[in-house]
């Protein structure tokens, strides 16, 4: 089984966000970057699948030279090979998807794992785009995954419940929290990763359909009202909710 995992290199969720003077991009000064949290579940599922049926796992990341840090991390977790699709440009999701899909095709992958969402632009569409480009089946926001021969049975989270999906490989699965418990890298894994090669490919620039006109901070809410410090404030709170906010 040839498995591809797509991993993104994103600002730590606790990072304070500052906007560059161009008013269009993130000011990355002082920002710590991490492996996208959902991609940890994607990697874990790829490792588990390989452990049960054998095969090879290739991780792909599209972005800057710095994305190699993330690729190094996933190599340490047990991924076999890594590819950096290098670009310094900011691309829209469809452009990223086209490059990822080309590489996945070149890798002749049967199964692709991704995170359900990157915690930078919070788009949550990459898996679906890549699947559509490759004409692969898709299971998005998966919370369970089972492969039997070429048959996939997976559960995905939906509003108010979950649904069980039956489909076949080739497929793209996007991982939601709950899919598995990601492992930590072993010391042996970290040492081995240092020796592994990260293949680098320059991507030919594609054109964006979606352009950022402006990036800005949301308007901060004015400070709210502390109604009181114990249950004696409850009648007033209920009155405010009824008469001022009109929400109950």
């Amino acid at each position, binding site marked *: 089984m040839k498995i591809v995992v797509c991993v993104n290199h994103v600002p730590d*969720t*606790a990072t304070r*966000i500052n*906007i560059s003077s161009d008013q269009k991009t993130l000011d990355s000064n002082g920002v710590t970057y991490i492996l996208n*949290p959902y991609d940890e579940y994607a990697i874990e599922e790829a490792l588990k699948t390989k452990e049960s049926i054998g095969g090879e796992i290739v991780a792909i990341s599209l972005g800057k030279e710095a994305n190699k840090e993330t690729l190094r991390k996933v190599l340490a977790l047990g991924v076999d090979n890594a590819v950096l699709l290098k670009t310094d440009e900011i691309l829209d999701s*469809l452009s990223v998807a086209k490059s990822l899909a080309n590489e996945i095709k070149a890798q002749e992958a049967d199964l692709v794992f991704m995170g359900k969402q990157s*915690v*930078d*632009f919070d*788009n*949550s*569409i990459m898996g*679906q*785009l890549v699947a*559509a*480009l490759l004409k692969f*089946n898709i*299971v*998005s926001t998966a919370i369970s995954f089972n492969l039997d021969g070429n048959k996939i049975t997976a559960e*995905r*989270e*939906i*509003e*108010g*419940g*979950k*649904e*069980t*999906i*039956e*489909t076949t490989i080739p497929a793209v699965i996007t991982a939601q*929290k709950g899919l598995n418990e990601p492992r930590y890298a072993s010391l042996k894994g970290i040492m081995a990763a240092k020796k592994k090669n990260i293949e680098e490919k320059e991507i030919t620039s594609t054109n*964006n*359909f*979606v*352009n*950022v*006109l*402006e*990036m*800005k*901070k*949301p308007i901060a*809410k004015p400070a*709210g*009202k*502390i*109604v*009181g*410090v*114990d*249950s004696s*404030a*409850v009648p007033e*709170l209920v009155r405010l*909710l*009824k008469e001022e*906010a009109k*929400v*109950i």
Partner: protein
Amino acid sequence: MANKVLIYVEQRDGNIKKSSFEVLKKGSELALSLNAEVEAIVIGNEINNLENVGVYGVNKITNLKNSELASYSVSAYSELLNNFVEEADADIILLANTSMGKDLAPALSVKLNCGLVIDCTELDVINNNIIATKPIYAGKALTILETNSPKSIYTLRPNVFTVGQISNSIAEVITKNIDSVNLSNKATLVTKTEGKLDVTEADIIVSGGRGLKAAENFGMIEELASLLGAATGASRAVVDAGWRPHSEQVGQTGKTVSPNLYIAVGISGAIQHLAGMQSSKFIVAINKDKDAPIFSVADYGIAGDAFEVIPALIKEIKKNNA
């Protein structure tokens, strides 16, 4: 120049989702500003009250119908929607940003090779162009986006665009029976969280955090929620502790919600939690630490002990309801 706005109406169990009413209304308003036609499409089998889309300003809806389409299949729905959009020659396609919308919109954007803006919280028409606002970095920043493709697709964050009726017309319903459907990728079983309202769909949410000390203490959260007709939510800390199911988690790694009223009890208000709920219309915080960050986004707060305040709140609401 846009000539036609098409709205994808989502149904589950034969009922139109509330989030689709929001999209219908916004879509008809956009069509008006763009001087474009507007119509809707729904995929399913027997669907209730389709003619009602008229009250949101959309006078024509096509139902692509087959008994196999009663439950969701991404392969079937996607193929049908893609073909319909091409036939109808729509240039602006709108969907709700739901688990289904997030599957169908990307597939459609590949088919049309066009721009897709996901999870919009504002859509404005400026000089005949649609300008979209989308929260990024968990709501810590906003981007203002524009597409440059002849056609464009937008998904709208549920609960942000208000529903309200704008007309009293009844829409023309066109039913097209579909002969064969592609079920290579199909939901075979849908499990509903028993009797519970989902956080993404609720008008009111009562959420509890680690301040509640133990799983058993969520009884009072559930009681308050049921009195208010609310859904129950949770912080990650209590989900990780196994006190509450993951489906209730609000925040960056959970659900993004924007109810009319969000009541946070014993939740500190970590940035990742705020990410999921700060677009709520009214926020109430009950936390015994007056410096907890949750108070910085709250409209009203009680800086007191939840174990004393919540029972009193339950009593007061019962008294008011009586």
